[in-house]
């Protein structure tokens, strides 16, 4: 399709964009640029350019109308979403039950795991000062956290967050978590001390 060297950039972008649209229509998960590049057989920079063009296009910045959908980068990849202002319309159409929300305890546990991963259950418990077993189980069942590895010495399972969590938060990577380091300076040390000192069982 990119035979014509003269207007190659435009044609190429259009062609890549069209292929991307086809792929994006059928995927169930956010797709990274690399995976998209492999799918459409184009170099990553060309894909990035085409994605950017599509974002602008759908947002009405390319001369066309604002589309009812948009292209968002979440959880490490790109995916088609209903445009935010039309979410209510779509909610009404699909009906459905109110989503079951996480309890405050689950939210706090999730926050601890997100910031301190990889982290064991007892480490989380020592920070949260409560038993977190059932909460961890809920978070696992929802696919928001996952078992990363088992400590060879203690046999304790280390937990971390999943890409699904990023999607649920609407962010692209853990770097986008709010910065809380001022509050947590020395927190590792503290958690460690608490763990070593008092958390034996």
């Amino acid at each position: 399709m990119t035979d014509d060297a003269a207007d190659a950039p435009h044609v190429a972008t259009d062609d890549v964009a069209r292929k991307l649209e086809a792929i994006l229509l059928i995927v169930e998960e956010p797709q990274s640029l690399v995976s998209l590049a492999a799918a459409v057989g184009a170099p990553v920079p060309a894909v990035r350019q085409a994605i950017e063009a599509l974002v602008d296009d759908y947002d009405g910045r390319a001369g066309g109308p604002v589309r009812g959908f948009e292209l968002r980068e979440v959880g490490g990849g790109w995916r088609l979403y209903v445009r935010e202002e039309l979410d209510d319309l779509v909610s009404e159409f699909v009906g459905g039950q109110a989503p079951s929300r996480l309890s405050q305890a689950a939210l706090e546990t999730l926050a601890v795991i997100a910031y301190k991963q990889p982290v064991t259950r007892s480490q989380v418990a020592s920070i949260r000062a409560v038993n977190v077993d059932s909460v961890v189980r809920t978070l696992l069942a929802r696919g928001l956290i996952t078992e990363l590895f088992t400590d060879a010495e203690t046999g304790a399972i280390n937990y971390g967050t999943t890409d699904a969590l990023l999607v649920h938060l609407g962010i692209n990577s853990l770097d986008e978590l709010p910065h809380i380091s001022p509050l947590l300076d020395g927190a590792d040390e503290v958690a460690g001390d608490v763990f070593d000192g008092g958390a034996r069982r």
Partner: protein
Amino acid sequence: MALSPDASTASATDGTGPEQTERVAETVEGFRVSLSNFDGPFDLLLNLISKHELDITEVSLSKVTDEFISYLRQLGPEEDLDEASEFLVVAATLLDMKVAGLLPQGELVDAESVALLEARDLLFARLLQYRAFKEVSAWFERCLRREERRHTRSVRLDEKYRNAVPELAWSLSVDDFAALALLAMTPKEIPHVGLDHLHAPLVSIREQAAIVVTLLRDAGTLTFRQLIAGANQPGVVVARFLSVLELYRHAALSFEQLEPLGELTLRWSAQRWSDENLATLGADYDR
């Protein structure tokens, strides 16, 4: 650290039991503090601290501690043991902090008092850390709520592409599969009591629970005093008490206490008890 309260009345829709919070919140009304987001003893502590409009200092801390302990005393016999026990660990923590705070600062002579002060600093740091995570959890909630309203494209793959989908990698034997079903359908995690505040697990709770079960099942009704008669190690007493808590969680016994700090009477009330429960009861404590 703290006991998680028995969620026997907690909502089943969410394993984390929102009602659990409500129940504890009710207990706490006597404190006359604003408890907008009450979520456990540490929260209560923070609320108390903020009520006194002071940073965490020795003065405010001892005041808070006194208030906390006096509230604990008020917990009548009608209160759930679970609710009361929820506070016990915090009360102990506070007492530690208070003791540390009362130590004359200039006369740090023995290693023990130094250790106490360090412990206090540690607890402060932990409170702050706890608060940090609590605060940031609000951001999580905001994001999750915003995103749960969003709709992403997620439709079944068209038939014509489905043939191209690679074969499913399947490694489960039929027995694995059955085990998985059992896992999925059995709430098999054992509620356990944190022993963080104990220095060493000297006594097996499982063994002590077995003794408690035997004694109580035979006698039907026993006071806690009778139950620990002859136990001269504090560890054994503690383990028996914890196993009483655990058995209460299993609805194996009920208890009665007519006045605060009065005689605790235990009654075997298990509808269906299997000694298999014992095997799992202490598993967390005796390693």
